[in-house]
């Protein structure tokens, strides 16, 4: 029988897949630090992700949270920066730090066989970091230079400004550092922030991969005896102060050949009943390669290399963002097309076939996203830090499976109101 290439192979709909979030293990160290683990994987590697409640929400002075997070690896009472880096790198281990809004993390990636060699150094960083003056000075100097470089880039400027318009320059989600902020921070600021939010701060640990047999003991000896969890997390409130003006056009570089476009509106956080169903609407609109924005603006008109929309993943309050860099002469038609696509979703029901495709794409993607121990613990981390549980996971899947065109149209009518959107082009 001749092969019929016009006939697509039979598929199993991803909406019929049995998608499970595998459970974590949990234990508590002597100092009441909670540890969530997921053991698995074929390679002899592991991840230890320590989350501190030390994000920029808690700083009194701009940039202190980020600087503390970065520099706690650059000196302890026993070792200088080079010796600390050497202690990790000699074992092929990698220690990364990241500072976010509510939290800041210290993440260790290492070969399982060397965990026992490097875990004491992690403990040392949390107990004895001393922020040498010279390290701060070099970091400031290099960051100021990097900033001058970034300020040449339209997309960098656009990302900063759109958050400022949405949340206000004093809000953790809207603020950013200027050269002066880098200069203003001193050693005492770092020490003070470190003592409160790291040394005695609240910490939660997430681990995944292959563990050595005595992992719990190693963790308890090196982390479990530190004076963590001694301070209550302060209740801080930062009011959102959104800009009153909604439309902006900024010229950063007169020679620019492209414009960085950002269009965004406020959106509630994960706990809101609209959050999960809106993920489906977002995918149809601009959430993946086959979205309407991509098909129209890239694949039909060729205005841009890529256009995306997404819901920000803030804990408190989010935004729905549309982001693209388009040719300078086609920025205006690009924006018009974005609003046209919103209008279509407000006024016309999504075809069943398109909806089914998006559902399958989302659930198939979810299956892939949960493939591997680091991915599984990462999902749990998001849930635990957002005060959610596995019920949320299964409920979200059910919502994606069940959602109908009418509900999507209702969401579009509610949220795709052009007057709610902030709009910015940086040339």
């Amino acid at each position, binding site marked *: 029988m001749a*092969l019929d290439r016009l006939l*697509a192979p039979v598929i199993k709909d991803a909406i019929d897949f049995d998608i499970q979030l595998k459970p974590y293990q949990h234990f508590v160290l002597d100092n009441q630090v909670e540890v969530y683990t997921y053991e698995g994987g*074929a390679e002899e590697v592991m991840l230890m992700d320590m989350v501190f409640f030390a994000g920029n929400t808690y700083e009194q002075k701009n940039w202190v949270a980020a600087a503390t997070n970065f520099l706690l690896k650059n000196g302890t009472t026993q070792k200088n920066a080079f010796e600390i880096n050497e202690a990790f790198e000699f074992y*092929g281990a990698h220690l990364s730090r990241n500072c976010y809004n509510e939290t800041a993390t210290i993440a260790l990636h290492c070969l399982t066989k060397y965990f026992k060699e490097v875990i004491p150094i992690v403990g040392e960083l949390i107990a004895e970091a001393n922020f040498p003056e010279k390290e701060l000075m070099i970091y400031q100097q290099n960051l100021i230079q990097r900033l001058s470089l970034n300020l040449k880039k339209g997309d960098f400027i656009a990302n900063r400004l759109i958050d400022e318009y949405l949340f206000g320059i004093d809000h953790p989600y809207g603020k950013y550092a200027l050269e002066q902020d880098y200069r203003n921070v001193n050693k005492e600021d770092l020490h003070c922030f470190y003592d409160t939010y790291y040394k005695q701060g609240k910490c939660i640990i997430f681990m995944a991969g292959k563990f050595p047999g005595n992992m719990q003991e190693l963790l308890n000896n090196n982390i479990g005896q530190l004076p963590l969890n001694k301070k209550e997390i302060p209740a801080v409130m930062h009011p959102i102060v959104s800009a009153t003006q909604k439309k902006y056009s900024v010229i950063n570089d007169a020679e620019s050949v492209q414009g960085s476009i950002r269009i965004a509106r406020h959106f509630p956080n994960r706990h809101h009943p609209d959050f999960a169903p809106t993920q489906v609407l977002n995918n149809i609109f601009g959430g993946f390669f086959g979205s309407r924005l991509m098909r129209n603006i*890239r*694949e039909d008109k060729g205005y841009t*290399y890529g256009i995306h929309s997404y819901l920000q993943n803030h804990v408190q309050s989010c935004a729905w963002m549309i982001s693209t860099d*388009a*040719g300078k002469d086609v920025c205006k038609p690009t924006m018009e097309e974005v609003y046209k696509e919103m209008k279509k979703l407000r006024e016309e029901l999504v075809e069943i076939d398109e909806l089914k495709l998006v559902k*399958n794409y989302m659930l198939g993607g979810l299956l892939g996203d949960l493939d591997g121990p680091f991915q599984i613990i990462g999902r749990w981390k998001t849930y635990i830090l957002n005060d959610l549980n596995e019920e949320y996971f299964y409920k979200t899947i059910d919502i994606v499976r069940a959602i109908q065109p009418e509900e999507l149209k209702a969401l579009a009518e509610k949220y795709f109101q052009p007057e709610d959107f902030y709009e910015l082009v940086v040339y």
Partner: protein
Amino acid sequence: MIQFEKFELANGLKVIVHQDSSTPMAVVNVLYNVGAKDEDPKKTGFAHLFEHLMFGGSVNIPVYDEPLQRAGGENNAYTTNDLTNYYCQIPAENIETAFWLESDRMLSLAFSEKSLEVQRKVVCEEFKEHYINKPYGDAWHKMRELAYTKHPYRWMTIGASLAHVEDAKMQDVKDFFFQFYRPNNAILVVTGNVTTAQVKQLAEKWFAPIAAGKLYQRDLPAEPVQQKSRSMDVRADVPLDMLMMTWHMGGRMDARYHATDLLTDVIGGGATSRLYEQLIKVKQIFSSIDCYHFGAVEPGLVVIEGKLVKGVTMSVAEKAVMDEIEIIKNTLMPMNEVQKVINKTESLICFEDMSIMNRAHSLAFYELLGDANLMNQELEKYQLVTPEILKQTAQEIFQDNHRNTLYYYSKS
């Protein structure tokens, strides 16, 4: 150790299967043995433009992405100077969809004028986004032209100029396709929750009917040994001065490859590297500096590039780098420093091998080099590198006659 099985279809398509039943997913990866180096110097950027056209519909399937997404799959592709690689990840139960899609576009594209017209524009925007509308975006164009006089690594995969992409014609597209996108010029790798028997059956069904093409005989002009150092001054609207230097190195199968890789790590790979510690931390001459290499199939370049601290002159910065290079050339490295970069490499390999996607990419790449099993011998080759070998390698590479330098000055 990554286990795999290998077979070849009658039309010359090489097939590699790596089974991992711990995942519900599968990856289907098709590597075509064609990259920017195979382009006509007057029609550069073509291999990459072509990658975009591969998503514009094939002879029997109007849109590539839709059926894949419907089956819960995702896909992407990349083009380098050496190769073009297409891959999709899909729930293993729906793997036949990937075979259907990939085999149809290997059979023939739809060659739609509309797709060509749109993708020309999209690639032009990509060109602008990455190489024009970005500080130092043109540095690599200039460096490649400086370092190579004959070899096609002279141009970047995006193309030597926007005009080449804008001028692409449908006839060029067709010629390119039937010259390079043939089963006997491709490697199919399937990883994940599949069996070899299943892949054999699917490969026979979907790929075996595609006719082999005329075998492509690659005959690239070799780069003559550089006799004298070359340099170029650039002045542009950037905030900081940048120094970029390159030296020629062997190809991917060169006996010195592993030593070269470790050497660049010692010199400028991260926070304990020589250049970082000496020039950023101790002397504060650079605000950032890295040493790396191409990792390309053909003889590539070792690169040192850094941004100068404001107020430091180019000649001071250059001398500081060259002083470090002299130390590397003239003294034996301490054993623990060598052990460190070997340990880092071991760790990197283990983390890379975690996903079925990376395993598929690696198997395809090593098969392109001659044998997929080379993937499993890498760590051993790194472990054989000694301080003496590193010193010799440094002496061979860092010869002043072989150096190319880009002095990239800030106008302000």
